[in-house]
């Protein structure tokens, strides 16, 4: 791959990467000494404080795309893509509010732990399979990015970069378990924020902005020049439905991402989880605002200098090479690596939890705890190796778009979790049917598998926004209506929620052993939700412009 970006002194890049990995390995080694139980391995002993966890949450959410892909997409789509990115910040607050604290109360390791307690084993296998598919897609995307980053940084072939970066990454994550992933993620968030924001100040100063002292929000004086060169930059461009379609796919999807939920579960208490969310919003807001200014500066650079950036993925790096010293440019690359590594850490821990705890808990329920931890390590390592192997010649379907996968998760897992936590009538068979049918439907109507059968057009279809606007509300409505019907059929009594299933709901909401059948058990509100969902489903089916 011919790079527009190249460090003038490659050894400075090597030095930055070696120092960062040395720190990650030290944290992994230190964490491995603290890991003695399943709670330690999967949930860092439920001990992470609010500030560390807030940093860890932000790092886990901010992937390599924050440094590479999103800046390119801002250059392509301009302001609408900024709006798309902004709404992602509400995912962890929303999941914490809607189910995170409830599941933390039951000391779940992953959302599937709750699915098993609430719906039983067959439903858990379905949800675990969907979540695994999405985690593999996610980790694969990051691995490909890591391989490309090493290729870019050191000029080595992609496959060499992939193996070296991939194995080095899987090594320290496997060593440290969730303790290591948490503390490393907190450190990585500091590195990536500094790498994003501080060099941008120097770039803005060089571009003539008086707001260089606070890059995230003080570049307003560049707006007139920008409008002169690109008058449409701030146009909203799309219609109301495009913006509404962000909700089903991109707001409700990440709500069920297991690696984000697991960050909430590592909190030292339910109250600490809520404070962690406050820190998360502050840290992530700073980083994301840095991304927006980088996207703005990339457009500004092209408009003012007349130089075209052929590979917009490399915009941030090109700007740094153009305006900043080599050491700073290498540090920015280190920040991008940190962003990828923190997300891979979360993905691999989720895979380990889903396989080592949730699946193994079904397949071998009587296994000794010590053996289970060992299997957890094996699942974590194998998940990483599988992602590396897939990244050599990635199946097109799997790398099409991580963003597209969010709609799949919103369709298959979000209704199961939210209705399971908030509605006692949620039926096991209804969950399996709605999740499976709507999940398959989402894949079918996307342009990536069967291009002849597509709902929507262009970007909205490619990112799963139009598909999600059809299948997410359909999944909710189908789940609710089928639950109401199945619970009233004596032939399907085995699938109706048992008293023990219902007690789980009261317990995780904090009622202890005090059970009340009438709580979380209405029919009017769920029917109203189903009607609204069907209206949204109908809206989504109308022709897209």
């Amino acid at each position, binding site marked *: 791959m011919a790079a527009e970006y190249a460090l003038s002194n490659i050894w400075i890049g090597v030095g930055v990467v070696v120092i960062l990995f040395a720190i990650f390995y030290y944290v992994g080694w230190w964490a491995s000494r603290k890991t003695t139980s399943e709670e330690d391995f999967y949930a860092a002993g439920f001990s992470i404080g609010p500030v560390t966890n807030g940093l860890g949450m932000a790092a886990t959410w901010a992937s390599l795309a924050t440094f590479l892909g999103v800046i390119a997409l801002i250059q392509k789509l301009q302001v609408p893509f900024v709006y798309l990115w902004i709404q992602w910040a*509400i995912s962890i607050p929303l999941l914490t509010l809607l189910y995170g604290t409830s599941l933390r109360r039951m000391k779940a390791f992953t959302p599937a732990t709750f699915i098993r307690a609430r719906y039983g084993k067959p439903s858990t296998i379905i949800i675990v399979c969907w979540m695994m598919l999405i985690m593999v897609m996610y980790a694969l995307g990051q691995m490909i990015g890591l391989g490309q980053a090493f290729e870019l940084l050191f000029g080595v072939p992609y496959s060499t970069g992939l193996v070296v970066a991939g194995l080095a990454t899987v090594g320290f994550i496997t060593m440290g378990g969730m303790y290591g992933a948490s503390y490393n993620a907190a450190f990585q968030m500091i590195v990536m924020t500094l790498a994003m924001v501080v060099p941008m100040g120097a770039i803005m100063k060089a571009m003539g902005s008086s707001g260089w002292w606070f890059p995230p*929000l003080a570049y307003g004086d560049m707006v007139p020049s920008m409008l002169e060169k690109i008058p449409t930059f701030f146009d909203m461009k799309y219609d109301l439905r495009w913006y509404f379609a962000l909700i089903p796919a991109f707001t409700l999807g990440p709500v069920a991402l297991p690696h984000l939920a697991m960050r909430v579960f590592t909190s030292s208490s339910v109250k600490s989880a809520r404070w962690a969310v*406050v820190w998360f919003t502050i840290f992530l807001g700073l980083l994301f605002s840095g991304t927006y200014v980088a996207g703005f500066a990339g457009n500004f650079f092209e408009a003012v200098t007349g130089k075209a950036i052929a590979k917009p993925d490399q915009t941030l790096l090109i700007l740094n090479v153009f305006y900043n010293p080599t050491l700073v440019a290498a540090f920015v690359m280190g920040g991008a690596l940190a962003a990828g590594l923190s997300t891979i850490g979360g993905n691999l821990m989720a895979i380990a939890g889903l396989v080592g705890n949730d699946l193994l808990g079904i397949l071998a329920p009587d296994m000794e705890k010590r053996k289970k931890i060992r299997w957890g390590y094996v699942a974590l390592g194998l998940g990483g190796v599988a992602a590396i192997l897939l990244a050599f010649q990635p199946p097109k379907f799997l790398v099409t778009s991580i963003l597209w996968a969010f709609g799949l998760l919103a369709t298959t897992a979000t209704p199961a979790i939210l209705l399971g936590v908030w509605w006692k009538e949620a039926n096991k068979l209804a969950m399996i049917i709605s999740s499976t049918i709507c999940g398959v439907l989402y894949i079918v109507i996307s342009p990536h598998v069967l291009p002849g059968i597509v709902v929507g057009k262009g970007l909205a279809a490619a990112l799963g926004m139009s598909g999600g606007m059809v299948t997410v509300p359909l999944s909710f409505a189908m789940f609710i209506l089928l639950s109401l019907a199945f619970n009233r059929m004596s032939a399907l009594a085995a699938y109706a929620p048992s008293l023990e299933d219902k007690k789980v709901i009261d317990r995780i909401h904090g009622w202890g052993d005090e059970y009340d059948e009438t709580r979380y058990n209405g029919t009017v509100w769920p029917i109203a939700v189903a009607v609204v969902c069907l209206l949204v489903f109908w809206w989504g089916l109308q022709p897209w412009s």
Partner: protein
Amino acid sequence: MKEKLYKKEIWLTIVFTVLLMLTGHSATLFVLFPGLQQGTMWGFPIQYILPIVLGWFGLALVCWVMAVVCNRFDDEMEALAEQEKKNRVTVKTA
């Protein structure tokens, strides 16, 4: 008391869900009401900078209020659970 706490939990969840959605999706309001796309703030068009600010500081403020209010609610729930436990012990002893 239990009924009151239950209703409070439901209302807190609905209100904070709506507030979170508003902070994350404020850009939609500018499409819904194009007349709002007028004026500037800190040199930026309002429809650009306001969603960014709301998605950062607005969200942080909502989450701060959410932490305070929901943590207080948890205290009330814990007090109720404690009281119920004591009542059960008293009944058993009697």
